[in-house]
């Protein structure tokens, strides 16, 4: 006799979304979370009194609008604000200012290169066009190309038709785009290295590839295929920090009578005659359910909370070979005031948006070379945002909160494991670089949280601290995600499913993985589907 219809392991935003849709269909759902807070990597925490830290993810763009509306997240307190005006800082004193006003932006680009100013429009149109194809697949379950089931064949035909209808020219452009390096892709458009660097930055965030590595231009697309209020590629902030997203989904879940239990880490998934029948918590409690959904990454699911003996042959090895590499760090800073950056005109937008510290493609690639060698670069790529400039709820009046994302930071160091000293040294590298561009920056620091892949893994449970729950390379995308043959959210043990970013469509705060998994579960239970179709009013 099961006490729950479904148990979801991990209260990350995908787990919560999955639970919400199962509960919406009338299932009795329990979400168990090891931490004493929910949200996983989409979290706001008051680490310093009066400041709300979005400790991990810090901006939002990929959240599926259809889910936002369908779960009525706005009513549950979610407010996304597009943020404007990013400043890119060159290695020297050059600055590339991204004005919101189109003409101003064009003139600014022209200042660096008339050629590139003209190319920018073409670049953005192309990027948007490429993103349309993937966006169509986000809320769809990938077909299994090795199966002859009508459903898979239909889906394959749908994809083939969509792809074919692009025509020779477009297919050529797509294949190039999907397989080549971000640097080569950008060479087609731009000549100015600083502009290239600024455009390339989404191509390396979170990945163990460099701007010169084939495949990095797909990562670039993965970061720009989202939208805020329908404007593709726009980035937004969640009022109250990223935790607001998780909390609004959790609130939706509760409105469907779903339960969440925190400080309830799962020690093991219970399997009886090849069926998942529940979980055993770290405190020894046993909770039984008809269905178990793991929102943990594939590696953690199959190597940490499952018995190798419970798995069919080869799965454990597949999980061990799953590519999930930590490559990012995070430095979150509470500031006593708004930092002033040199060489940036006093424009109401410019000092309020994001900052990109990526002078050139070579600087970025050299940072990657350091990562390969098990160290961090003295001159790392930093992407910063000061959400408090837009959102008064994340810092006390007059004070500010700054998120700094760093690429690259190795999960293991060449000179042995991470220690608090090394972690602080890493943080020092980052604020030293910030101080270079904003003299007096250090004096503004009230409190600082430094997170290397080591912290990210241990606090949130992302293996190696990989923010995507697995590399976004072709061998691990679409029907290959997490492993070929298991791309449809059903896992090798009956009644066990996965809902995290280890599944299609992959990392990012999109809620799509969790929703897709829910659709498959409900289908198996022969319940009416509660998961919305994606809609493209913006196309």
């Amino acid at each position, binding site marked *: 006799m099961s006490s729950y219809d479904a148990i979801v392991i991990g209260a990350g935003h995908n787990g919560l979304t999955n639970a919400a849709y199962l509960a919406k269909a009338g299932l009795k759902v329990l979400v168990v979370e090891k931490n004493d807070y929910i949200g996983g990597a989409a979290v706001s925490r008051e680490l310093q009194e009066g400041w709300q830290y979005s400790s991990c993810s810090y901006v939002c763009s990929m959240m599926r609008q259809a889910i936002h509306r369908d779960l009525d997240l706005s009513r549950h307190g979610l407010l996304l604000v597009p943020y404007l005006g990013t400043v890119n800082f060159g290695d020297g004193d050059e600055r590339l200012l991204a004005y919101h006003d189109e003409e101003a932006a064009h003139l600014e680009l022209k200042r660096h290169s008339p050629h590139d100013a003209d190319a920018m429009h073409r670049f953005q149109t192309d990027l948007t066009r490429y993103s349309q194809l993937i966006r169509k697949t986000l809320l769809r379950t990938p077909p299994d*190309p090795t199966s002859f089931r009508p459903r898979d064949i239909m889906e394959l035909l749908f994809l083939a038709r969509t792809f074919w209808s692009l025509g020779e020219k477009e297919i050529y452009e797509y294949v190039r785009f999907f397989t080549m390096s971000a640097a080569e892709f950008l060479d087609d458009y731009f000549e100015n290295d600083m502009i290239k660097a600024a455009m390339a930055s989404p191509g390396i965030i979170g990945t163990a590839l460099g701007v010169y590595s084939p495949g990095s231009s797909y990562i670039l697309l993965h970061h720009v295929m989202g939208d805020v209020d329908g404007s593709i590629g726009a980035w937004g902030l969640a009022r109250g920090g990223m935790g607001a997203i998780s909390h609004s989904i959790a609130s939706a879940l509760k409105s469907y009578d779903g339960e969440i239990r925190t400080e309830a880490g799962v020690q093991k998934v219970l399997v009886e005659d090849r069926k998942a029948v529940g979980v055993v918590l770290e405190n020894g409690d046993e909770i039984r359910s008809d269905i178990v959904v793991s929102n943990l990454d594939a590696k953690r699911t199959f190597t940490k909370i499952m018995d190798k003996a419970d798995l069919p042959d080869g799965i454990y090895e597949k999980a061990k070979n799953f590519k999930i590499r930590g490559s990012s760090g995070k430095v979150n800073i509470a500031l006593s005031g708004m930092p002033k950056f040199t060489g940036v005109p006093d424009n109401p937008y410019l000092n309020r948006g994001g900052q990109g510290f990526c002078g050139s493609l070579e600087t970025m690639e050299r940072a990657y070379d350091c990562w390969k060698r098990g160290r961090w670069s003295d001159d790392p790529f930093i992407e910063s945002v000061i959400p408090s400039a837009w959102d008064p709820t994340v810092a006390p009046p007059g004070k500010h909160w700054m998120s700094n994302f760093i690429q690259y930071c190795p999960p293991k160091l060449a000179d042995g494991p991470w220690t608090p000293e090394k972690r602080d040294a890493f943080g020092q590298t980052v604020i030293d670089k910030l101080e270079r561009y904003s003299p007096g920056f250090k004096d503004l620091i009230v409190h600082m949280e430094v997170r290397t892949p080591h912290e990210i893994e241990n606090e949130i449970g992302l293996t190696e601290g990989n923010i995507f729950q697995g590399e976004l390379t072709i061998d691990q995308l679409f029907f290959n995600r997490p492993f070929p043959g298991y791309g449809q959210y059903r896992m090798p043990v009956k009644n066990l499913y996965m809902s995290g970013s280890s599944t299609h469509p992959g990392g990012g705060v999109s809620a799509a993985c969790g929703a897709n998994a829910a659709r498959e579960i409900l289908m198996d239970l022969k319940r009416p589907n509660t998961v919305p179709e994606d809609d493209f009013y913006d196309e």
Partner: protein
Amino acid sequence: MDRYDSIIVGAGHNGLVCAALLARGGQKVLVLEAAAAPGGLAATREFHPGYTASVAHSISGFSAAVSRDLELSSYGYNPGENPLPLIGLSESQEHVTVSRDSVSGVSDADSRAYRDYRRRMAKFADALKPFWSKTMPRIGPGSLRDLLTFAHMGWSIRKLGKSDMQEFMRVASLPARDLMEEQFSSELLKASLSWDGLIGSRMAPRSPNSSVLMMLYRMAEDGRGLHSIPAGGASGLIAALQRCAEAAGAEIRCGTAVRKIAVDGGESGLTATGVTTAAGEQIAAERVVSAADPQRTFIDLVGVEHLDIGFTNRVRRLRCDGLVGKLHLALDGVPEFTGLDAPRGRLLIAPNVDAIEFAYDDSKYGSCSAEPVMELTLPSLCDSSLAPAGSHVLSAHVMYVPARLKGGWTDAARQAICERSIARIERYAPGIRDLIVGQEFLTPADLESDYRVTGGHWHHTEFAMDQMLMMRPTYGAAQYRTPVPGLFLCGAGCHPGGDLNGLAGYNAAREILE
């Protein structure tokens, strides 16, 4: 004199294969080669009095089908009996020897893993093999034949069976490094097996997407990617092809560079009508077939004024920068490699995958590898004609040596990388320096000027997912026909690609004769 049916630009092996087949098809064929002798990158050069070497120092997977159709054996082509083993050199003298079905110098676990690895890769290679000798379908409202080709391609993958197909779809785009990490524990073995997925391309062990496909491409023939030195060296193949083409009636004129491909606009629109040689001679023909690389063919020989701008842009976009340097040493004796009975085989100096990766890193910024990795052979061990009696030739492919060196190529720069390479070899063969009587180092820039290959790229243009199959060199020219009627391609720059397998020339000839 009556008009030629086909003029073939360049007497590389693909040009010769194409010439032979066209001549056999009853055409009057003229092959124009700028160099003094045919062969292109497979031609032999005397780099020191009495010592000769070829840029392609060994041959892997020359298509058996081509060789059969051309009856090459009857023209003296002998692929060479036992293929060369691949020997990963170790400074601690624990060398790893990879031969066709087994590997020695590694743990039992690794040699067992190697057998499975070999079996699976061979199966994948066989599934892909039919693709290489087919003309790629054109995307879009295709003819029935095109659709059938697609169906056939899909089916040969599906035939692998569920689990192998799934594995194939995962492995096909894997970086060499990950593929190796999954199977083996020996660092030296990992590096050695990665080698054929990387050499000749702008790829490092960590680069995704194309290196496994490159391995499978090279494993398509029975040799399974193992190299051999045919009788008479690589030039033995070229000599046989030349005899074969001439026997069929093709005329081969060396020392005649083509300056322009003549394009005339009649009322029927533009067509290729012949060529103008460097000497200014105009030779007319029904059609021109270029074995030169796509950029040279379209940008230099045809000229952008005759091409649609979109097409020109795509050709300019092709990635054609080579990264392999060539070291030739004239030795008066057999060098001794510590811990090796005889230096017979392809000797790899690449202790681990990171060594290759880090060597690559330098080239990303336009410099030569500080610690180059390389593949050595002594072709003279198999072919005594290459060096005086008792003397030998050492031939090495050195990675990574950028075509566009930061600051440009100077003799000093060439000398530096040459010296660095020799020093690296010395660590495995102490005393080799005393044997050196002559030496030469060819950078990709030298290959470009000496052999007229843009960027000195082995495969004329990068063998990468976005530049292969129906995208090679680019759509509009991927079926050997080009936007200019009467102009065809038959070189490594078109499907299936580079290496000495002759398939590009073979496929092109089939299309032309149709």
